């Protein structure tokens, strides 16, 4: 039996059960070896490129924390000058490197129209430096810089709508994906790499260490995020949010509680006293988002 070569090798140092390497393996499986990557600081870079080793089997440039998109832009322009139009350029970054510090570089990359797939691996906090909150951290989440306590529900801000912000640049393709739906994710990578311009893929990557769950539950949590509507899988061509196409609709939508209660980062919503008010607020926000996406829940 012949097997395609793994482009992300064994021996990397991601925590057991981390979903970042799962996502990267799926993306590279689709992109193939004729790909150049850029990566900024964050767990993915730290676990895969400890000198003198690397887990990558494609050329990869390590950029600073804020500029995976800028470095990718330079690589893309150089490749086009050389007439190498068949080489894919993929910029990898975490949510910190995308939602917060890399937003300006990303916006420039999208606006200039480079033919690059930008992948944001979103584990909803700055994990590599010790679980600090980010503008990607959802309401009610306990992190080391938004700790839950007597007077705090944890993070008190909403998650930034990064997909909508990117799509507002009127780029050809924007999508969300997660590791529990490999076919959906890979199809979106294929579509993104086929467009003639920038594409943005927002991938939810559950983190056992920062979300505080047991390592075997990684894929289950990604699935629960979709089945509860916490993370909706969609794609969009162009900048009109009215045209968003939802790519996965569960047969029955589960209550957000099913997702929250399985994670230590939401433990304070259940113990010592159940915070029904916060759970209801999270549920209402999800319901409102689904209505905006034109989804009606069956009862």
């Amino acid at each position: 039996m012949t097997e395609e070569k793994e482009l992300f090798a064994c021996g990397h140092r991601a925590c057991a059960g981390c979903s970042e390497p799962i996502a990267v393996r799926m993306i590279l499986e689709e992109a193939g070896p004729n790909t150049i990557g850029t990566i900024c600081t964050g767990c993915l870079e730290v676990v895969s490129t400890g000198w003198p080793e690397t887990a990558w089997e494609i050329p990869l440039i390590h950029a600073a924390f804020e500029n995976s998109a800028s470095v990718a832009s330079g690589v893309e322009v150089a490749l086009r000058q050389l007439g190498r139009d068949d080489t894919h350029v993929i910029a990898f970054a975490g949510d910190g490197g995308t939602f917060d510090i890399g937003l300006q570089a990303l916006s420039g990359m999208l606006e200039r129209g480079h033919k690059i797939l930008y992948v944001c691996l979103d584990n909803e906090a700055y994990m590599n430096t010790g679980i600090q909150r980010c503008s990607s951290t959802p309401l009610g989440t306990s992190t080391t810089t938004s700790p839950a306590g007597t007077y705090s529900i944890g993070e008190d801000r909403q998650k930034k709508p990064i997909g909508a912000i990117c799509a507002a640049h009127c780029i050809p393709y924007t999508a969300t994906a997660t590791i529990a739906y490999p076919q959906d994710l890979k199809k979106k990578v294929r579509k993104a790499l086929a467009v003639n311009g920038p594409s943005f893929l927002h991938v939810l990557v559950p983190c056992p260490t920062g979300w505080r769950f047991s390592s075997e539950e990684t894929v289950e949590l990604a699935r629960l995020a979709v089945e509860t509507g916490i993370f909706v899988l969609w794609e969009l061509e162009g900048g009109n949010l009215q045209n968003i196409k939802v790519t996965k609709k569960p047969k029955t939508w589960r209550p957000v509680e099913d997702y929250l209660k399985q994670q230590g980062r939401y433990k304070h919503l259940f113990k010592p006293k159940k915070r029904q008010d916060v759970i209801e607020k999270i549920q209402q926000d999800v319901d409102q988002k689904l209505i905006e996406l034109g989804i009606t829940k069956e009862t």
Partner: protein
Amino acid sequence: MKITIGAINDKPGSSKNYKTGSWRTLKPVINLEKCKKCWLCKQLCPEGCITKKEEGPQINYDYCKGCGICAHECTFDAIIMELEER
């Protein structure tokens, strides 16, 4: 240690020098009789240490960290986690 010009690493895939299998406390064991060769475990393993073989999936224990995802996700309960003994 010699640092190359521009700190260019010219050894792709060299992370394989480091055997992460020593991290494992639980060990996945595949029951090939139950396995239907859907290859879901291979797709979902974070280590990429499951390979396709004629008789079914094969785990490379040099790298398996024992996360348990393969066993947890297998639709046919063909993988169980056993206590690792060394």
